[in-house]
């Protein structure tokens, strides 16, 4: 494992880097590649919904054609009874309000009479009369409808279904032909589009390889290691928040970082995600493209492009927009359209959003909160918001998800659910998870490897059992046992 030289780049190097930066080229190429892949994934669903919409329109058109024949064919007695029932139902809904008004009047007059100490039998009898009147009215209406029904049946007493059967068979044949032709057409289109996208992906991959060959390979991590933190130091003035911390996170594992309050766990996270500029030490990460990068080369808003996404200790969602739109915020860097297209409101923006919404709905379904998709994030319960935040972290196809106290503020049953969710995320999305947590139950049940730190220094690293038995960790949490 060769270490890279720590020479400071000269001013000239810096200037040439601004104008001819292969890293920037790579980033833009990868952005395109990711977009094409998103497009490819969402394609079948989009074509399916297109097809269904078209077929639905055709079907309703056929139904309209069929309706007069169907009317001729139907049993008139049955039809008239259904019509009668529907009309009576409508009448009853209306009559319900009248009954309510009468009852309310009775209640009011009874209360008034009791207050005055009078007899309220007059009001009751008046109420009875009103109810009788309503009932009589209903009976009159029923009679009228019955006579109408009888007249209708007398007028159309024939039921001739020969025309209906013939027409239906003919239309069904037509419909089947159209359906098969449409689905074939869409399948062909889908295949064409997929092939086109595949060609695009190949071309982009070739381009990326071409640019990559101009950059000398930095270094390689040991096999199976995704993130390697070496001698990380973070000093705030004289305060050593993190001091010489070294650990490796393997691919596909759930790595827990524990420690007492103020141990510097969140600081480590912030150094990895570039919120803080580390005082010293190296952070190497194998990014989405499979090459090892030094995280210190990137700005904080470029970290997500390398494949690291994070959640926050306190939920940091946008409150004014819906849950679905919150997920779209995580894809801000994936849009191909620029500001001018957005300002002019061209239809391409809606198309892009549609693609991403398909992806977002898939993730919401996975988290079991698809019912909340159109809700504003403002009034939702805390447990749901925590899930939304995890869903948002999943939106960017990250390789490493960093969770800052995912169980903070959750109750016991929610924490148990979270344990399942974290495992499911790891298995389904093929990601590695790095989490900071105070809830020892969660850490011990979900983590493969645990690293305990105290005052910025590592105490122990190992499996859960090893950490539980470790003397230094026990002392850090429970204090030193003094012999009397």
């Amino acid at each position, binding site marked *: 494992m060769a270490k890279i030289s720590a020479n400071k780049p000269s001013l000239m190097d810096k200037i040439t880097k601004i104008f001819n930066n292969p890293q920037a080229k790579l980033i833009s190429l990868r952005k395109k590649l990711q977009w094409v892949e998103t497009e490819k994934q969402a394609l079948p669903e989009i074509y399916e919904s297109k097809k269904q919409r078209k077929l639905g329109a055709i079907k309703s058109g056929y139904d309209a054609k069929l309706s007069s024949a*169907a009317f001729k064919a139907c049993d008139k007695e049955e039809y008239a009874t259904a019509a009668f029932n529907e009309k009576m139902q409508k009448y009853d809904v209306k009559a319900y309000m009248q009954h309510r008004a009468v009852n309310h009047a009775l209640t009011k007059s009874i209360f008034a009479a009791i207050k005055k100490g009078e007899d309220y039998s007059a009001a009751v009898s008046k109420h009875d009369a009103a109810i009788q009147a309503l009932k009589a009215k209903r009976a009159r209406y029923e009679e009228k409808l019955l006579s109408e029904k009888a007249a209708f049946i007398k007028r159309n007493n024939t039921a001739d279904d020969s025309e209906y059967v013939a027409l239906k068979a003919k239309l069904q044949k037509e419909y089947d032909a159209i359906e098969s032709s449409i689905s074939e057409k869409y399948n062909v289109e889908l295949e064409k589009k997929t092939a086109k996208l595949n060609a695009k992906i190949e071309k982009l991959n070739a381009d990326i390889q071409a640019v990559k060959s101009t950059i000398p390979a930095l270094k390689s991590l040991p096999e199976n290691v995704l993130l390697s933190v070496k001698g990380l130091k973070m000093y705030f003035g004289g305060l050593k928040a993190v001091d010489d911390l070294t650990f490796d996170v393997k691919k596909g594992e759930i790595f827990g970082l524990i420690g007492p309050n103020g141990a510097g766990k969140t600081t480590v996270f912030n150094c990895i995600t570039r919120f803080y500029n580390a005082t010293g030490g190296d952070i190497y990460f194998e990014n989405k493209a499979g090459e090892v990068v030094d995280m210190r080369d990137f*700005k904080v808003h470029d970290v997500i*492009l390398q494949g690291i996404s994070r959640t926050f200790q306190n939920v940091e969602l946008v409150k004014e*927009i819906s849950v679905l739109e919150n997920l779209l915020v995580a894809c801000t*860097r994936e*849009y191909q359209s620029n500001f001018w297209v*957005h300002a002019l409101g061209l239809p391409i923006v809606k198309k892009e959003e549609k693609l991403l919404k398909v992806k977002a709905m898939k993730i919401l379904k996975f988290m079991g909160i698809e019912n909340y998709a159109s809700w504003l994030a403002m009034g939702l319960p805390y447990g749901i918001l925590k899930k939304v935040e995890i869903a948002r972290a999943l939106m960017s196809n990250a390789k490493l998800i960093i969770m800052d106290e995912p169980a903070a503020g959750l109750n016991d049953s929610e924490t148990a659910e979270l344990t399942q969710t974290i495992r499911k995320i790891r298995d389904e999305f093929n990601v590695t998870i790095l989490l900071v947590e105070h809830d020892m139950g969660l850490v011990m049940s979900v983590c493969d490897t645990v690293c305990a730190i105290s005052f910025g220094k590592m105490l122990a690293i190992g499996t859960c059992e090893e950490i539980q038995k470790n003397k230094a960790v026990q002392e850090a949490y429970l204090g030193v046992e003094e012999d009397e």
Partner: protein
Amino acid sequence: MDKKLFNKYSFDNANKTPGFGKVVGEQVKKQLKNPVWHYILFGIGVLFLLTLCINKVLPYSWYGGFVITAAYSISSIGFCLLMGYSGMASLGTGGFIGIGCYSIYYVMTLSGLPFFLGILVAIVIAVVIGVIVGFISLRIESIYLVILTLGLSEILRNVYVKLQNAIVIGKVEIFGHTLKSTETMYVIIPVLVIVMIITYNIISSPTGRAMLAMKNSTAAAQAMGISLLKYRLMAFIICTVFAAVSGSMIILRNGSETASNGVGAYALITSLNVLAAVIIGGYKSIWGAIFGTFVMYGLSSTILQRIELFANHPELITIVSGVLVIVVVMFYPGGLAQLLAGLKIKIKGLFKKMKEAKYGKDIG
């Protein structure tokens, strides 16, 4: 028998299909849900109203009030985007408005070039100023940024005083047609509608969402890949460009402006008025910004001056708007837009109460 085939049961034989009028009506209804059409209809309505003012069906004095409201509304909308969506405030609007005024003056009067070229020059200068302020906004936040933009605005005003204290533009020609003072509305109102549409497009697009994310939490926004530099620059550039366009509309309407004594369109009082307008109207609503601007700029000349008390004591008008700001901030932090939304809910509640008084409570 497939019962779905009958649209609705009836004792008349015919299964009615929807008529032509209904189909067209549904299409129109669907289109009208798009806010872009609201803005265009609003523009047409205002033009119609102003035509009535010119023909003296409505009082002629309303014309000036409405047109100047429209001109200032453009900068209010830009400010709305800056404050409501990006979470930054500025008191530099007055100075930015001056950019528009002076660009028009120099391009038209001194160079004899057409009016629209003046707007283009104003936009270019505004972009440069916006970039400067945007870079500063990365380092400085909240009240300090406000003070800083205030200083910048005063610098700009003093530059204007040194350049040319009072400016007067001559007659404006558009496509060979000399614009009369009653015809300026045909330029100002369409520009306002275009600005409204652009703003709506931005706030409903990924860019607008990114700005909102930045306002809510800079840390979360950065973790989601949103570059603070890019979006803060963008917000300030939009704000300054809209203010400059607004300035060119103001000079088009007024014909002259003065920079001295802090009473002109680019004095501190304008910045404060625009801020107050956005707060009164609601800092997240385009309609709110226009309504707030009307309260600050149009209300006195259209309504209050017809009341004898205010006509005799014009200083009372300022007091009224001051009281309005206090009341709105205390009771309706979302502005008049929130008040209207609340009113809608209250009216619904009133109907429910009326129903309950008549029928009693619904017990299922």
